[in-house]
């Protein structure tokens, strides 16, 4: 569908450009957030896995990913119309019959493609937190490329494309609760089940080597998340404003929720807890950001803060080594948000809410059903495919997906990248 440049609104375009830049900045932010939490000997490997996603996934997005995620009007996956970014300067994908979606956009198609690219980059990057400290870099390269194309693009199509079956069904996901967080969170679980535990976990302490780095990453993530959520309004309008406010409120409330329960359970309110709580709130509000109002974001955030803290305590009991709690924060936070949305989605805030939430005037459970379908489909699809991909790589790659024991002990920085994070001592 040719974009009519007469419809271009410079204000909306400005906001989408700014938002795309903000979302891009989240991946370095995530790298630092995670990088501060690993041990010194693995800091670069963590940073590298994330920065590399900016390289590989972006190129793949340009070559094929955007086209697979948004091309055409099939219900399950896109097509090859936009391969190599062909026609992206002037063309939007077609709207499905009877729906006006891309037709309402007021910014150039290339901006949409760029904005969506940043989501495609950060989603697999989230997984690095789970597999930290033990994956061979070359295995990550393969995993990353395959996952971005095989797992991410279909789910993005289902939910974000107006032709996608979940979108058509009425499931709501404002900025990526299912596509990004549940998708990455359950993939993280599948990946660590194949990969196994870090040597020494959970007996040996593996404290964060630099919490200031983690806090810096938190600040960048929070900042960038305004682009992620408020940019998903697709315009600089009231919905964007509401999404912005909700994003911040949920992060704040989740920080408080996490700290309160942490204080009660372990005696101290920690800095890492504040950071983790804020991120949990940001995750949970993502699907809801432009659909809810009033104090709903405070409730969603507070619930996410408490539930995610409790969820994290499970991994030691269940015995899977999700190093930096991608499951506890992104999967669980994504679930909290995607399901609470069915209670708070409010047509008064956003006319796109066709099925009001349970707690809203004239609301009902219709949306809850749609959300459960969307969540369930994403969980199953992503878990199965991720499991298969990692297993297959473990068999096919010479050396498998995991570093040798000794290299894990020495650290990934030296063994995978021939570098060390810090050389403070002068000679």
């Amino acid at each position, binding site marked *: 569908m040719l974009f009519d440049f007469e419809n271009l609104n410079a204000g909306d375009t400005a906001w989408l450009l700014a938002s795309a830049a903000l979302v891009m900045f989240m991946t370095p932010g995530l790298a630092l957030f995670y990088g501060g939490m690993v041990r010194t000997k693995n800091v670069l490997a963590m940073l590298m896995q994330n920065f590399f996603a900016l390289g590989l996934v972006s190129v793949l997005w340009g070559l094929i990913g955007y086209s697979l995620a948004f091309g055409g009007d099939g219900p399950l996956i896109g097509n090859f119309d936009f391969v190599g970014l062909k026609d992206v300067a002037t063309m939007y994908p077609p709207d499905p019959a009877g729906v006006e979606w891309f037709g309402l956009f007021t910014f150039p198609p290339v901006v949409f493609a760029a904005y969506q690219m940043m989501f495609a980059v950060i989603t697999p990057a989230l997984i690095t937190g789970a597999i930290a400290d033990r994956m061979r870099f070359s295995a990550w390269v393969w995993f990353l490329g395959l996952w971005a194309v095989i797992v991410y693009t279909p789910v993005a199509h289902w939910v974000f494309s107006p032709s996608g079956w979940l979108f058509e069904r009425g499931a709501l996901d404002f900025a990526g609760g299912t596509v990004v967080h549940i998708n990455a969170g359950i993939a993280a679980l599948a990946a660590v089940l194949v990969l196994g535990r870090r040597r020494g976990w959970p007996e040996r302490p593996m404290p*964060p080597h630099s919490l200031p780095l983690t806090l810096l990453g938190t600040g960048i993530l929070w900042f960038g998340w305004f682009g992620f959520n408020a940019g998903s309004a697709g315009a600089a309008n009231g919905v964007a404003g509401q999404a912005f406010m909700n994003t911040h409120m949920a992060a704040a409330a989740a920080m408080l929720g996490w700290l309160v329960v942490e204080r009660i*359970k372990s005696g101290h309110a*920690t800095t890492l*807890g504040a950071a983790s709580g804020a991120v949990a709130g940001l995750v949970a509000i993502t699907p809801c950001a432009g659909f809810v109002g009033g104090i709903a974001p405070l409730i969603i955030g507070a619930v996410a803060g408490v539930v995610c*803290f409790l969820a994290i*305590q499970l991994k*030691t009991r269940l015995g899977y080594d999700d190093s930096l709690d991608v499951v506890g924060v992104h999967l669980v936070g994504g679930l909290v948000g995607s399901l609470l949305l069915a209670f708070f989605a409010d047509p008064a805030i956003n006319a796109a809410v066709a099925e009001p939430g349970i707690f809203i005037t004239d609301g009902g459970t219709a949306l809850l059903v749609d959300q459960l379908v969307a969540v369930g489909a994403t969980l199953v699809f992503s878990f199965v495919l991720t499991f298969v991909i990692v297993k297959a790589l473990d068999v096919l790659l010479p050396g498998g997906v995991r570093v040798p024991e000794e290299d894990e002990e020495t650290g990934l920085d030296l063994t995978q990248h021939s570098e060390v994070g810090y050389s403070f001592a002068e000679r």
Partner: protein
Amino acid sequence: MKLVVGIIKPFKLDDVKAAVQDFGVQGLTITEVQGFGRQRGHTEVYRGAEYTIDFVPKVKLEILVDDGDALAVAERIMDAARTGKIGDGKVWVVPVDAVYRIRTGEAGTDAL
């Protein structure tokens, strides 16, 4: 010659240095170390996981002195480093066969 070694609380370093300087010591070498002993360490909590850290930051001093000064220097260190609380540290004295100053090649007392 003797080497007087002291393990002290880090914040006492300035006092101890002043005390031995006052006695006439013209040089010394310090190292950041970690001590384990009667003084308890601490607990760290990361996302609900508790780690017990047994080691406490300490500073180690090494001071080369003439045989006759060893006891006096040890006493100076002890007096200046004492807070009376557990963890104040230790002082010990090690015999030294020879000492040289690199710059001049001087040996023994002249090298101090």
